[in-house]
């Protein structure tokens, strides 16, 4: 062996050893155990028909992220209008009639109801509080609705009540997040994002997921409640207004002509395209398409989102307040948007947190006024969708993030100055209408004081599963890959509430 040969031999050996050193024990374990396991698993799943691409894989097209797509299953609903009463309305003053609770009014709460329970504010032994409204049965379905909703009580034969909804979150923000994103913590995509991700939207001149707020404040969970989480950002909710400019800064600023605007957007897009060529990040393509959509929206949005061109009798029907920002205006706008092909309209109305710590937060004053502000609009919405032939394909959902206790709130052990109730997670009411939901039906029941559910118990995941089902998805198959695993809206839970599906 010559020196050169020896050196060459050494070099090769060294290279081989270096290469081998790069494989740690971890690699070995991973490669052997996981690798073999994965191969076997893949083969097994493949033979079960689970592997490979299924029809449920929604392809995300970064250039046209909002183009309409067909759902994997036949959907009854094309659009959703979700009316969220932020703060949690009291089911005991609206839908869940409990005469037995009246008999206990003023008595100390039995220990059996308090043992092992946590409340947001109640401490010590609170007093029981009877229903603070008169109830009557309505319609052919003989559903109980209180005097607080005289208009809506005429609509009971068109809706399905879920009387035994439960949650595990007793603070507003996490409970709201749970209902709309499937997790009480920040970071998951909201239901509207999932819907637009899966189905796109019919009208490319408008956002597919619109959010409208009223009541003077944002929902406690903030804007992430309509965020897109790990879904591409183009699917996040677009917050619009029913008064003034529908979208803030939608008008060209003074001195900016339409042509100049077009030219500047073209320039931005051109530079974004270069960026995309360099980095290949699909979010850049989404950004380009969003600029283009914004440009188109400048023309179409003010027209569609202007509720003032609706005839007088429609304004009368909804009880709108021209020139103001209010729930009724938002509801009318929601109907207009759905008519124009918007996929998901999310309304939040703040101010339902009737603790009894002040007149506006009391069951006898504040709650009644809140009811007055939504009663006419929600009734009009259902009737208007119906007469336009749209209720069949529009799913309307109404509800809060949790319910309220049958006990009167005693904050820090001291009776509140007004009649009010604390947050309650075990039983509250949500109703759904249209979009293939049963008419005049009640699912679930609570005990005689409305404290716990005794049958038909459902939770946020069940409601999400049902909404997705009506849109044409199987909530267990509708996933998005993130951090190495497929994520779903309903996480690992949820059961479609077949009982309320027509």
């Amino acid at each position: 062996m010559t020196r050169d040969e020896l050196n060459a031999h050494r070099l090769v050996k060294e290279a081989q050893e270096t290469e081998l050193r790069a494989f740690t024990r971890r690699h070995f374990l991973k490669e052997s155990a996981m690798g073999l396991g994965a191969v076997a698993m893949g083969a097994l799943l493949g033979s079960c028909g689970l592997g490979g691409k299924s029809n449920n894989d929604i392809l995300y097209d970064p250039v046209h992220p909002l183009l309409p797509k067909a759902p994997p299953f036949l959907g009854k609903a094309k659009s959703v209008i979700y009316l969220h009463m932020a703060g949690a309305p009291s089911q005991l003053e609206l839908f869940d009639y409990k005469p037995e609770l009246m008999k206990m009014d003023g008595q100390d709460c039995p220990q059996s109801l308090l043992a092992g329970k946590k409340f947001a504010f109640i401490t010590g032994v609170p007093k029981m509080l009877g229903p603070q409204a008169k109830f009557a049965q309505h319609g052919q379905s003989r559903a109980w609705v209180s005097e607080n909703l005289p208009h809506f009580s005429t609509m009971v034969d068109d809706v399905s009540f879920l009387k035994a909804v439960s949650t595990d979150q007793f603070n507003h923000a996490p409970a709201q997040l749970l209902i709309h994103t499937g997790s009480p913590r920040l970071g998951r995509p909201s239901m509207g994002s999932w819907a637009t991700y899966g189905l796109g939207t019919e009208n490319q001149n408008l956002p597919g997921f619109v959010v409208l707020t009223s009541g003077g404040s944002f929902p406690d969970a903030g804007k992430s409640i309509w965020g897109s989480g790990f879904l591409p950002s183009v699917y996040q909710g677009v917050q619009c207004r029913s008064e003034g400019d529908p979208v803030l800064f939608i008008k060209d600023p003074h001195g900016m002509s339409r042509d100049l605007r077009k030219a500047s957007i073209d320039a931005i897009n051109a530079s974004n395209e270069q960026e995309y060529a360099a980095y290949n990040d699909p979010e850049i393509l989404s950004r380009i398409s969003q600029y283009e959509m914004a440009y188109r929206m400048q023309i179409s949005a003010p027209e569609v989102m202007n509720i003032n061109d609706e005839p007088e009798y429609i304004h009368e029907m909804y009880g709108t307040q021209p020139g103001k920002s209010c729930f009724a205006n938002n509801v009318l706008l929601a109907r207009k948007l759905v008519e124009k092909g918007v996929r998901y309209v999310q309304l939040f109305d703040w101010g339902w947190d009737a603790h009894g710590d002040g007149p506006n937060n009391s069951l006898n004053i504040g709650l009644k006024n809140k009811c007055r502000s939504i009663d006419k609009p929600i009734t009009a919405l259902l009737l208007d969708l119906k007469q336009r032939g749209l209720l069949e394909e529009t799913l309307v959902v109404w509800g809060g993030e949790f319910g309220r206790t049958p006990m009167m709130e005693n904050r820090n052990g001291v009776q509140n100055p007004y009649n009010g109730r604390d947050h309650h997670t075990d039983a509250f009411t949500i109703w759904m209408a249209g979009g293939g939901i049963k008419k005049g039906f009640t699912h679930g029941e609570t005990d005689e004081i409305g404290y716990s559910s005794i049958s038909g118990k459902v939770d946020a995941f069940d409601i999400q599963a049902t909404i997705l089902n009506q849109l044409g998805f199987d909530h267990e198959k509708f996933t998005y890959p993130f951090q190495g695993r497929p994520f779903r809206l309903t996480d690992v839970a949820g059961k479609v509430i077949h009982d309320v599906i027509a």
Partner: protein
Amino acid sequence: MILLSIPDLIGRFHPILVHLPIGILLLGCLFQLLTINPKFYVLRPAVPLIYLLGGLGAVFSSVSGYLLSQSGDYDSNMVGIHQWLGISVSVISLIVYTMYKMQARESLLNLVAIVLIVLITITGHYGGSLTHGSDYISSALKDEVKGKAAIPPIANVQQAMAYTHMIQPLLQNRCYNCHGSEKQKGKLRLDGKDFILKGGEDGKTLVPGSAEESELIKRLLLPASNEDHMPPKEKPQLTAEEIELLQWWVKQGADFNKKVQDMKQSEKEKVLLLSFQTGAVKKENKLADIPEKEIAKADAAAIEKLKQAGVVVIPVLSTSNYLSASFVTAKASADVLKLLEPLKKQLIWLNLANTALDDKGMQAVAKLDNLIRINLSRTAVTDKGLALINGTSHLQYVNLVGTKVTVAGVEQLKALKELNSIYLYQTGITKDDEIKLKKVFAKVNLDFGGYVVPTLEKDTTEVKPPVAK
């Protein structure tokens, strides 16, 4: 729950263990018979060892089989035959081993090998019948589909015998396999009144009058993941209706000799029972949103042309070739409408709302004869244009809101047998016409709209807090 005893555990391995001696002994017989040909004589020294191993395996299998039979879950007749056959296989295989050692005559050895093959086959067959049911093989030949209705459709449910015609067939098709004459898992038989009332090893299975206390119902309602759920999750399950039927029957006293009509039924239960009738309600519900008939894929180029014109064309669901088209961002000009014709077989949902569509344009629409849903609201269509679609026989949903159609125009649609809803808000239809139309379209949901939500005093006022004293 009682833990399995060791003999029980060994017994449960029997169905796995048996395959060992079967394989070994068959190999031994095969080698033995092959050695008839001198070419294979080299195999001969292996034969006695194979017989010995097979024989020992057979003995061990017999023991485990005997332990399994003690569970009493099996038809004792069949177990008896299987048991003696198994024992004879073990004995004969050990005998044939000794015959080898004593250098018996070759022809005799061949004969015993053949006998052994026949014996193993028969024993194996009986063993298989015990685990899978005696109709396991024959049922594959019969045209029986898994998940087929457990209860054959009944001509008139109310006249039927509740037990004989409904409950018994249901139990037979879903339970007898393990709780019948051949197997009695959990010492329970369900094939007959006396057996059902007797119950199983866990006690009574049926409490007439109380579905809640009846084990028979409770087990059905357990989640499928629960170990006690019946039928076991890999077996065909009962439908929700079938469970409700059983619940109703138990609740009404679980009578074995009554007619359905003689047992109490709530309104809901009447509907439930009706669903078991021949060609029942199910068909009515089946008036589906999409046709059941498969259809060929539409021409991709034709779809692309429509998309270029701004029309949203997508399948109604991703696995279907049926299409929906929406003009929400497109103009319904004659040129664009013409593009719909190549899709006339596939297009079933069409939304033309808020377009300039007129009677002339309806000529193109009328060619789409598979349409199920059509939205013509706020278009320029009149009675004349509407008349053109009175041959679109599958139409279920017609939206005419905000058009100039009149009662005469709408009446032309009466030939459409599958119509489900017509929306007529803000049309030229008067209050008198409404009554007339309701008679013509007795079964159709007619919506004339014009709903009013009256303004109450409370709608515009607020409750004021009491003034502090």
